[in-house]
C-alpha cells in the first residue's frame, strides 16, 4: 500500500512539473503560439472539440472502424492460427506466408488498398486487418504449440477428442499466449488505423489531426493527440488489463512464463 502511495505521489509531482515547465515556456513565448501552444490552449481546444461534437463524431468513426477491422482480424487470425497448428500443410504454406507478412508494416498495404478498393471504408478495414491478423495468428499458433503435452494426455485420457479436445483443453491452455497476441494485434490495428486516417481516408481521429495541421491549429493537433492517447490507455488498462488479471487469478504465477512464449 505504502509502495503504491509513493508511486502515485511521484507521478503527480512529475506530471505537475511537466505542465508547469510547459506553461512557463509558452508564457515566455520562446516560440510563437501557433507552433508551441500552452497547456491551457490545448485544454480550450479539447473543450471546444467536444462541445461542437467534432471530437465525438471522430471518436465514434474511428472506434467503429477499429471494432470492425479488429473484430475481423480476431476471427481470421484465430482461425488461421488454429489451422496452422492443426494441419502441417497449412503451416508450411500459409503459416510461412503469415510469418513473412507479419514483418511488413501494415501501412505499406495502403497504396494497394486504395487501388483495389478506392478511397473508402473498405480500404481502411483492409489496412487494419493486414496490421492485426498475423500477429494474432502467430500468437495463437505459438500458444497451441506450447501447450504442455500433459494437459493433452490428461484430456484425451478423460475422453476428450478432436474438436472437444481443442475447445476444452488446447484453446484454454493456450489462452495466455493468445491474449498476448490479441493485445499486440490491437496495438498494431490501432496504429494502422491512425496512419491510414492521417494519410488518406476521410473522417476519424487521424483525419482530425491532419485538419489541425492544415489550419495551423497546433493546440487542436495536440488536443486530438491527447484524445488518441487516452483511448489507447483506456483500452490497454480496462479491456486487456482486466482480461490479464482475470487469467492471472486463475493461473497464478505460471502465466508469466506462458505469456512470454508469445513475445
Amino acid at each position, binding site marked *: 500500500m505504502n509502495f503504491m502511495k509513493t508511486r502515485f505521489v511521484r507521478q503527480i509531482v512529475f506530471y505537475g512539473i511537466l505542465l508547469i515547465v510547459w506553461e512557463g515556456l509558452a508564457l515566455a513565448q520562446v516560440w510563437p503560439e501557433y507552433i508551441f501552444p500552452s497547456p491551457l490552449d490545448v485544454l480550450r481546444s479539447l473543450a471546444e472539440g467536444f462541445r461542437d461534437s467534432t471530437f465525438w463524431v471522430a471518436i465514434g468513426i474511428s472506434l467503429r472502424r477499429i471494432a470492425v477491422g479488429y473484430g475481423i482480424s480476431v476471427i481470421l487470425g484465430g482461425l488461421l492460427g488454429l489451422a496452422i497448428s492443426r494441419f502441417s500443410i497449412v503451416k508450411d504454406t500459409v503459416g510461412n506466408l503469415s510469418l513473412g507478412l507479419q514483418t511488413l508494416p501494415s501501412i505499406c498495404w495502403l497504396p494497394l488498398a486504395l487501388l483495389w478498393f478506392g478511397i473508402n471504408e473498405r480500404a481502411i478495414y483492409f489496412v487494419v486487418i493486414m496490421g492485426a491478423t498475423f500477429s494474432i495468428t502467430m500468437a495463437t499458433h505459438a500458444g497451441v504449440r506450447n501447450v504442455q503435452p500433459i494437459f493433452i494426455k*490428461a484430456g484425451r485420457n478423460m475422453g476428450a477428442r478432436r474438436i472437444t479436445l481443442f475447445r*476444452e483443453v488446447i484453446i*484454454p491452455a493456450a489462452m495466455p499466449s493468445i491474449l498476448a497476441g490479441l493485445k499486440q494485434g490491437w496495438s498494431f490495428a490501432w496504429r494502422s488505423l491512425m496512419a491510414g486516417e492521417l494519410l488518406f481516408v476521410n473522417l476519424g481521429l487521424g483525419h482530425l489531426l491532419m485538419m489541425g495541421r492544415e489550419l495551423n491549429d497546433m493546440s487542436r493537433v495536440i488536443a486530438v493527440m491527447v484524445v488518441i492517447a487516452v483511448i489507447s490507455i483506456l483500452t490497454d488498462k480496462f479491456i486487456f488489463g482486466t482480461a490479464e488479471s482475470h487469467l492471472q487469478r486463475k493461473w497464478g504465477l505460471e502465466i508469466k512464463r506462458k505469456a512470454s512464449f508469445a513475445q
Partner: protein
Amino acid sequence: MSLIVDHVSKSFPNQNKILPVLRDINLEIQAGELFCIVGPSGCGKTTLLNIIAGLEPPDIGTTTWNGKRIDHISPQRLMIFQELGLFPWLTVLKNVEFGLKMKGIPAKERRETALAHLEMVHLVKFKDAYIHELSGGMKQRVALARALAMDPQMLLMDEPFTALDAQTRAMLHDELQRLWISTKKTIVFVTHNIREAVCLGDRVAVLSARPGMLKNTVPVTLTRPRRIEDHGLMEIVRVILGELKNEIEKTVRDEFHEDTVR
C-alpha cells in the same frame, strides 16, 4: 476379471540404435488388486504403464482386460501422472467435473458427483479454488477425486507422490489405501521407492534394469492400513532390495560408462 500382460516387449529408436526397454513381460493383475511395480530408473516402468493404458502399443505381445484387447486410450483406465495434468484454467470443482462433462453427463448430476468425490478427499472447502492456490498434497487429492469421479475400472499411477515431502506422502499413502478399500478399484502403481511399493501393494512386481524384465513378484500380506515406517515392511523391502542391488549397480555402471564414452 483380470488384466493380463502377455509376453510384452518394447523398444525405442535411440541415436540410430534400437534401445530395448521392456523384454517379455508377463503379468496377471486381478480386478480390485492394488499392484505395485518397482525397478531402477529407466527400466521401462512408465512404458509398461503407458502400454497398459493404451497410450502406446507394445512391439510384441498383448495386453487384455477381461479378455478384451487393450489397443486405445480409454477413460476406463485413468492415468495419474507425477505432474498430474490438472487444468489451471478451471476451478477444483470444474477439474473434477471435466471427465464427467466429456461423458456427456448433465450439469446438475456431474456437479453432485464431483462434490461427492471432493468430499471423499476432504476438499469441498476448496471447490472454488484454482489449482495454483493448492499445496502439492491437495493437488494429488484433486487428481484422485478427478479420476475416481469418472468411476474407471482401473487407476494407473505413475510415481504420483515422488515430488512430495515425507509427511504429505505418508498422508497420501493412508488416503490412497482408504480410497482403494472403499472403492475396490484395480490400481497399478509404479514407483522407484521400494518401501512405498511394499507399503501400498498387495503384490510388488520387481523389474530388472533396462531392458526391463520381470525378476519376481513378491506378495505382501501385512494387514492394512499400512504405514511406511512399519517395521513389518522392512523384511520384504530387504528381500526386494537384495534382488535389485545388482540391477541398481548395473544401471549406475551403465550411466557412468555412457558418460566416459562421451
